[in-house]
């Protein structure tokens, strides 16, 4: 099993969710996060004084998937989240040792 994580622009969340659902993904976790990459922060102006806001708001989505689907799902997220401009975010996947469905106690691929 693998955990696919994407940090994306907040307004692309609906697109990514729709794309994942049509791929057949049954669930995902979403959190609001802040950070910066090459985009860096942005500036805001208050009464003529400029402030640099270092961390930009982003959305992080996490999906637990079967090994076989991992690369496809990375592609699905990357494609759905793309705008082509700076600050689109990143998607990565990493191995997962163990998964348990809390309600039933199922383990491994059964729990996905």
């Amino acid at each position, binding site marked *: 099993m693998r955990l696919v994580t994407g940090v994306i622009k907040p307004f692309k969340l609906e697109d990514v969710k729709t794309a994942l659902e049509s791929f057949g993904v049954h669930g995902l976790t979403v959190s609001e996060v802040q950070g910066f990459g090459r985009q860096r922060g942005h500036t805001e*102006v*208050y*009464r*003529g*004084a400029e402030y640099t806001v270092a961390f930009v708001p982003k959305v992080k989505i996490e999906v637990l998937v079967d090994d076989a689907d991992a690369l496809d799902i990375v592609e699905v997220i990357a494609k759905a989240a793309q705008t082509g401009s700076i600050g689109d975010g990143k998607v990565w996947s990493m191995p997962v040792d163990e998964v348990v469905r809390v309600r*039933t106690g199922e383990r491994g691929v059964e729990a996905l």
Partner: protein
Amino acid sequence: MDPELIDGANAGFVMVCAFLVLLMIPGLAFFYGGMSRSKNVLNMIMMSFSAIAIVSVLWVLYGYSLAFGTDRNGLIGFSSGLLGLTDLTDNAVFGAVEAGADGVVNTYLLPDMIFAGFQLMFAALTVALISGAVADRMKFGAWMAFVVLWASVVYFPVAHWVFAFGVAEEGGEAAGFANGFFAADTGGWIVNRLGALDLAGGTAVHINAGAAALALVLVLGRRRGFRKEPMRPHNLPFVMLGAGLLWFGWFGFNVGSTLGATAYSGLVLMNTQVATAAAVLGWLAIEKLRDGHMTSLGAASGAVAGLVAITPACGFVNAYGAIAIGLLSGIACAFAVTLKNRLGYDDALDVVGVHLVGGMVGTLMIGVVGDSTHTLTDSLFFGGSLGLLGTQAIAAFAVLAYSFAVTFVIALLLKAVMGIRVADEEEITGIDQMTHAETAYEIGGGITGGGSATPPVTRPSSVEVSS
């Protein structure tokens, strides 16, 4: 005097205006509170509320007597019968005045208690205005002591100078606003003896509060991180709400200062509105040209700058003059608020940049664009005389100098006696939490707070648990 001489419509109107001016203070609290950082928003609001509480009591006990008691050489008033407002309960009436077109003077009678209540709100508001400058770092106890001292030795006398118009005895020498009516030998020195024009308090309220704010922050010192850390407003919708409430209440302030509901009051209403609107446009234009963005904080600040500037002038200019004063104040204040970053004094929420500068613009501009129909004295554009401008400048700088000097002494005194600045730890943690034992917002307390997640009821047996 005969109570039947009281004009009910005017009296009722001024009473409602008193309520409107009171509403400006919570409006100001939100205006300042939204601009402060979230860890200090309650402290910011409490400074305004405490000003209402303290000044109301002082006003009734002795403030009204000092401001509006029997004149003592134009510098201060005092009447022992006005301590505790004792003599006002007897249907005493105050002669209100309207300087109508062509210098025709109409007088109305107003219950003195209503006038005293109206003026109470001015006193409380003026003190509260200062609090914006000291945001994030002043000890709350020191603020309360400051309110007592400042109201007593700065506001009450200055209110006398500007608002205690002595009415001429029959045949007495007259001067000032509504020539031929105000006495030259009694009443506050600015309104009577000098004859400067200030309808609703550009000098006594705004220059006074702005100069005091400057003196107080020079003694108090800068916020930690001033000019290094971003100190962005934590809630701009609060700022807009506060500005809206101020704008609304300001009609009570300006129009109510005509002490009646007359044709002249209508002029004041319209001048107040159009000057404020022009100031919003002026401020936004500067922002667009200078920063590239028209901000909501700029619109709110422009509105307040315009309201401040038109306050002294609202009854002495025509619509063109009001628009000119509004535009000029929006532009001047948009530049003035950046001065603190260059000069290094930490006027946190720009009381100096908006109230001192806006008050100066409005007070002086009467001498430039004052309409001689209403000023009854020639201004620069109406008659080409510099005399009125000079008179206005004397009034403005006298209040500025007195307020700055006395406030500086008060601040040094409080600093020596009790300390005026919170400890470093409190400044970093937040005054809300450490002084008031409250915080404004519950952050992240949504679904995970409240202790154990175990459901209080057992699962109905009809539901199958799959395994």
